[in-house]
């Protein structure tokens, strides 16, 4: 049957010019068939879209609704605990959506960083010759890859929020001062972080002599942060110049000038000087105490209170995505053939330099594409914050705003578009990076 048809098609192809156009050629002649199919598909798609639009209009009319984005400028009327820019419940729904978007981005940003650190660390350790370490890392990777992310988020949230002590357990009472007893709960990590049932009290940055905040129109510009960013970026640029100069000298004379102390100085000195000049110190959360050391008040003062919803989401996302990144890293390093290592040893390179100069640059090219998709997955998975009531984009725009205004179509449309744009931006950034480090072929 198949062969007969094949012959038929070939015969048609050679005879077709002689015959005139017949209707059956629309299906059986390969020159016209793709045209026919596309026209049919186009018609079907248009019909489908028309049907959906028609239904939507009918449904909207039946519910006495319209499509209108005006609600974005109405008063939101709900509070958001974690806000990166000023917001009160008098602000608009639009501003609430932006707060939500920023909350999504901040989890995604820190999550990507932590997940990469964990992933690279675990991926390399899993390749170690140490039997015990290898097994432990395998257990970690398999445990996190084969259990739903939602479970990790909920478990971390429930365990930290339900088992953590109350703030009053950290208080030192007059009785304790007399008897020398310790309070029921202690801060961790050198007495800097207090985990209570309300959240994580972590140290915050504090400047004694901050630069003023300038208003550029209605946009407030915090000069302190701008100065710090400028100092960091400036020292990185300067360091690159030093390294480029060193490379030029090496290419000219064959001797590479010693640069490590210059680099260290350029990278560290400016930021340290700036921070000292601004009077930077950490604001450690603590109870206000009187002269005897007896605590006053009901809660910690100073520092930053991080909500359990944020910390649980961040920890679970980092550990979960870290397991996937570890697999990508391991696969990338294993993809480099053994001959590369042997060739490097034959050239007399030490193991450390072999890793840095030969294996890693090649492995990086294999690692980056899966890494991109893991970053994208992590960003999309931040929407699981719904399980712990984290008010991200889905919680504000697609949650409370949607329920309050009843504008499902508009809210869902805006939310999907925003996620789509974030995904496209991340993937285009990482693709640009990928093509920059890609092996340049003919």
């Amino acid at each position, binding site marked *: 049957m*198949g062969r007969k*048809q*094949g*012959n038929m*098609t*070939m015969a048609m192809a050679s005879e077709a010019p002689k015959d005139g156009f017949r209707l059956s050629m629309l*299906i*059986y002649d390969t020159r016209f068939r*793709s045209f026919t*199919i*596309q026209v049919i*598909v*186009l018609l079907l*798609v248009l019909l489908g879209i028309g049907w*959906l639009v028609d*239904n*939507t209009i*009918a*449904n*909207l009319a*039946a519910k006495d609704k319209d499509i209108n984005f005006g609600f974005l400028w109405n008063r939101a009327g709900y509070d958001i605990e974690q806000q990166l820019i000023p917001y009160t419940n008098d602000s608009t729904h639009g501003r609430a959506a932006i707060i939500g978007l920023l909350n999504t981005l901040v989890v995604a940003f820190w999550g990507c960083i932590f997940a990469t650190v964990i992933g690279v660390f675990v991926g390399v*350790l899993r390749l*170690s*010759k*140490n*039997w*015990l*370490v290898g097994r*432990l890392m395998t257990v970690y990777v*398999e*445990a996190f*890859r*084969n*259990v*739903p992310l*939602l*479970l990790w988020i*909920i*478990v971390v949230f*429930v*365990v930290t929020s*339900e088992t953590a002590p109350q703030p009053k357990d950290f208080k030192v009472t007059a009785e304790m001062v007399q008897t020398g007893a310790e309070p029921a709960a202690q801060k961790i990590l050198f007495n800097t972080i207090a985990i209570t049932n309300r959240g994580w009290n972590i140290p915050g940055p504090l400047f004694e002599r901050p630069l003023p905040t300038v208003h550029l129109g209605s946009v407030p510009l915090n000069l302190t942060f701008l100065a710090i960013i400028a100092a960091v970026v400036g020292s990185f640029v300067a360091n690159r110049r030093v390294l480029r100069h060193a490379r030029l000298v090496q290419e000219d004379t064959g001797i590479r000038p010693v640069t490590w102390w210059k680099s260290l100085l350029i990278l560290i000195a400016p930021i340290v000087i700036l921070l000292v000049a601004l009077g930077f110190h950490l604001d450690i959360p603590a109870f206000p105490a009187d002269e005897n050391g007896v605590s006053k008040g009901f809660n910690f003062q100073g520092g930053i209170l991080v909500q359990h919803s944020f910390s649980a989401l961040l920890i679970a996302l980092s550990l979960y995505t870290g397991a996937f990144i570890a697999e990508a890293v391991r696969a990338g390093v294993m993809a480099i053939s053994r001959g590369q290592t042997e060739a490097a040893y034959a050239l007399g390179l030490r193991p450390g330099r072999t890793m840095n100069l030969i294996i890693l640059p090649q492995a990086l090219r294999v690692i980056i594409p899966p890494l991109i998709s893991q970053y*994208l997955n992590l960003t*999309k998975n931040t*929407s*699981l914050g*719904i*399980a712990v009531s984290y008010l991200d984009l*889905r919680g504000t725009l*697609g949650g409370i705003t*949607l329920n309050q205004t009843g504008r*499902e*179509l508009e809210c*869902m449309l805006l*939310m*999907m578009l925003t*996620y*789509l744009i974030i*995904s*496209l931006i991340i993937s285009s950034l990482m693709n640009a990076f990928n093509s920059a480090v890609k092996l340049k072929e003919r």
Partner: protein
Amino acid sequence: MSDTRAETAFIRTEMLAPELPPVTERGIIKWLRENLFAGWLNSALTIVSLLVVFLLLKSALPWWLNGVWNATSLGECRTIAGPEGGACWAVIKARWHQYIFGFYPQDAYWRPILAFALMFVALAPVLYYGLRNGAKLIGTVAVLTVLSLALLDHDVTHVVLIAVLMAVLFAVSWIAPKRLVYVTLLYPFVAFWLLWGGSVWKPVATLLGFGVMVLVYRLIQPRLGVIMGTAIGFLAACFYWLFVQGIITGALGSLPPGLAGVNSDQFGGFLLAFVIGVTAITCSLPIGILLALGRRSDMVLIKTLSVGFIEFIRGVPLITMLFTASLLLQYFLPPQTNFDLILRVVILVTLFAAAYIAEVIRGGLAALPRGQYEAADALGLDYWQAQRLIIMPQALKISIPGIVSTFIGLFKDTTLVSFVGLLDPLRGVTQIVRADINWKGIYWEPYIFVGVIFFLICFGMSRYSMYLEQKLKTDHR
């Protein structure tokens, strides 16, 4: 010559038995030196790891071993376990049926169990290389099914009937394994009927539509060819489903045999996860293949549509798709249509997974050497023949790891349906359990239980994919 021999004091005439290697180079000490204490960094890592393992065991093992299995509330658990504390597994013992079946009627548990067992029978011709292995698997499943039914179901006739059915299927798989394909083809209808109940004539009438399609195809294909035959057959079947089926079900719907109907909101736990997961996995693979082919097509319109669909789906989180299923479909469908929430969720999860599968298969297609396509053309195969006989078998083989990890991701993502009000095992059921006054404040045990089951299923799937990869490996490198 003999002189020299006599002068030499001693010449050994037989071989010495080889010395044992030094004590540090043999046995367990060698293994320890090489694997745990090679160099100071390695030794430090070993000691740190030992410390971690020790701390983990020290905090978890007593709790684990001191578990309480018989209690009616968390308070009672704590009293029994005493001051050192212990796990309260009694909650699992009390509520396991909700974790497995949700609110499915207790006297009908045999239906999901039978559907689950039949799933393996239906999968046997698809999954298992070596037909004897398939038969062995079916035998094991049959024994387990009958055992669990004997424990759970108090109606002896059910157990006996199902035992007979499983025995027949086992005999078929042993004698004529290829016949099991019919079980595979019928399985979706049987499973639907078993799970949701109702009159048997409803799935039969639906099945008749496929009969119509095949019949029309057989009639038309000799005259008008494959393409027209398929198209007209499909249209005839659609006509049947839209206009004729309703009449048939209306006429026969009240006639026996039938099973008691079960509503979708009674589904829950792992039963729900399996219904959504298995359906979506089965349907997403063919759709994904079509999307991947569409994305590589020469036809501009098809390519644009495929790319747009895939990139849109991959750019938004699954949760937004699920909310679309629960909130927005009511706008897009004709007024007064009201179809099942589980079905809506299954459709959107399927589309979601299909976009990811499409990308995985596109990778497999791109990895095939161009020569394979050219060879297929040179043999005179048309597009679908080339795809079926040359391209897809190779491309799918390359994509197995990616496809299976997408399936694992899909199965894990079935837990997200709790956000649209379905009772998934992880959040839906556990919330109900934790809201019970007897079990208020319990957190580790339910999550460990659910997590272990998910781990076993997903880990099993990934091991199976590795086995399949090995089995299908044909290159001789």
